[in-house]
């Protein structure tokens, strides 16, 4: 436990997503679903019932043509650190079915322990947690293409993005086999980061100066969603547009002109 809480040595995996590059193509969502055996239904038109771990939002500046601007914002789980690892969802789970790993900064979900009370969903302001309202059903033959490294989830439990944790485990095992303690940046990448054709998603250790995210997060254009709530998320966004950066948080009129709400 002493080692687990040694923050100097610990990794802190996170992402920097360049919204100026994101085209809203949805490759990250598809890659995430394929990689993590995320079930789907015939009608996926209702985002509130969809099982997507990563959802791409469409933001507008609310101005009429020709000043209208669009921004696509991919939203995986923020893997909030909160204060000292007390992320909003982890601290509320009554059955310790979700955990904040101090060695990686990853918020995990233990599907076989979750009993589906959904308190974590109520606690998450990002709607990053989703519930298995149905049992997963795969089109005939598709079950053969499921990822063997990821367990499928049953009806009645909550699930969420875990930064493709199985990939971390594989990379870690490989490193140990080769006598290394640390894994390289390119050895552990999430499916969404690899799938992005615009290279908008950069993934790595936010604490490691050798990783790209370490520098990117320090950009003057970097911001995080709802920082004022002190959720301390590990997803950073980059945007050169001020209205996009402002859309990242709520401000009083006296602080900024009120951001136009749009979906």
């Amino acid at each position, binding site marked *: 436990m002493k080692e687990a809480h040694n923050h100097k040595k610990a990794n802190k995996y996170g992402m920097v997503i360049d919204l100026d590059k994101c085209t809203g193509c949805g490759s990250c969502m598809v890659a995430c679903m394929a990689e993590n055996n995320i079930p789907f239904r015939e009608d996926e038109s209702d985002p509130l019932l969809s099982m997507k771990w990563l959802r791409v939002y469409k933001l507008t500046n609310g101005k009429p043509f020709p000043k209208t601007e669009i921004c696509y914002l991919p939203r995986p789980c923020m893997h909030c650190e909160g204060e000292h690892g007390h992320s909003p969802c982890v601290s509320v789970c*009554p059955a310790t079915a979700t955990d904040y790993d101090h060695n990686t900064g990853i918020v995990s979900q233990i599907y076989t322990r*979750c009993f589906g009370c959904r308190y974590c969903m109520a606690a998450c*302001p990002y709607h990053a947690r989703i519930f298995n309202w149905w049992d997963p059903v795969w089109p005939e033959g598709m079950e053969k293409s499921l990822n063997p490294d990821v367990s499928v989830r049953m009806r009645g439990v909550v699930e969420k993005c875990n930064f493709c944790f199985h990939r971390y485990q594989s990379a870690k095992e490989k490193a140990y086999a080769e006598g290394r303690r640390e894994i390289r940046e390119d050895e552990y990448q999430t499916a969404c980061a690899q799938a992005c054709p615009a290279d908008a998603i950069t993934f790595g250790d936010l604490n490691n100066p050798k990783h790209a995210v370490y520098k990117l997060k320090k950009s003057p254009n970097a911001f995080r969603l709802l920082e004022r709530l002190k959720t301390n998320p590990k997803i950073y966004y980059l945007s050169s547009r001020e209205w996009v950066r402002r859309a990242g948080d709520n401000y009083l009129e006296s602080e900024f002109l009120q951001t136009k709400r*749009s979906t």
Partner: protein
Amino acid sequence: MIDSALIPDRVKRAPLWKFIVWIIIVGAVLLWGVYAMLLCWIKGLNQTNMNNSYGFALWIWADLAVIALGGGAFFTGFLRYIVGKDELKNIINYAVLIGFICYSSALLILAIDVGQPLRSWFIFWHANVHSMLTEVAFCLSCYFAVLTIEYIPLILENRQIDKVPFFHNLGHNMHEIMAVFAATGAFLSFFHQGSLGGVAGVLYGRPFSYRTGVLIWPWVFFLFTWSAAACGPCFTILITKITEKITGKRLVKNNVVELLAKISGWMLATYIIAKIIDTLYWAFSTAPSMGFTLMDFYSGNPLYGIWILILEIVICGILPAAILITKKGRKNGSLLMTAVILASVGVCLNRWVMVLQVMAAPVLTFEDWALYYPSWQEVATTILPVAYGIILIMFSHRYLPIFPQEKELNPAVESK
């Protein structure tokens, strides 16, 4: 009547056929709820209208509401056994029965609400001590056990059961030590009523419900206990008055009701002052520090306007408190009924906003209000405990001496 041997001595009860007809009518509603419950268990929570924005919905509100309304049991017990308000012995049985119904209903609803009911025991086995819901689960279960212990002696007082020496002695001995259980119940209730408030109050990602507080407890923790202690007894009075109306008899003396009403009134008055202070601090300090103004939570949607706050605090808070703390208000039957109805509605409304409005209000700037209406399965399973409660009250009233003053207040009936 065939069942006259089971009916308490020297009291009048409705004809058996009438009793059975009503049991069938209410039983039909109960079966409807059971059918919906089985659908939820067999087919899963896709039978509801909940979604990924509404992880908590009608059921959690129903849970919080019935537990607040059932607060009459612990607070009346506290007043009767700990404070020593002896007159309340004439209403404590009914308060316990109503509490028993409310808490068993809450447990039933929770059993339907969780996605994997067979894993419900994980909350005890893998308990996370940081979670308010863990505290709720432990205290709720323990207090339900206490209520069962408090209800058993009432069952043992049935004329036929009481004839068995063992049950007679058991009932007598249980009565003797009931103060211990009442004290335990009051202790547990002070915690779990509060932790239900804490469930919403600790959500620092949800500015509508988040409250600052003292140590690990948000202010809303104390407000929930306070409001349950204030409004729970009002609900006990309300159900007592409804029972009197339906049975056409007086069951509890006015001085008993007025005493409970007076204490409730002062509890409600002090609660509403605390609630106003809490609301002001939240509206002008906590929420702005998160980038929200008060009106952000009460505009931009077709349902949740500022009216809901006014209704809760003024109409269902200040008004009933003002009625109940005045002697004239308590003595006037219509005003008393108005006050206890408003107080009961008020506490339910408070629980509603602390569950449903929390889920509805957008936090991300690019999301909109998420409104929801329950499916018929959710409605049916929420009405199910009401039907169950009515049936349990019907049986308890018919066969058990719930009201010690009934014989005195209705002396015309001859001994059978």
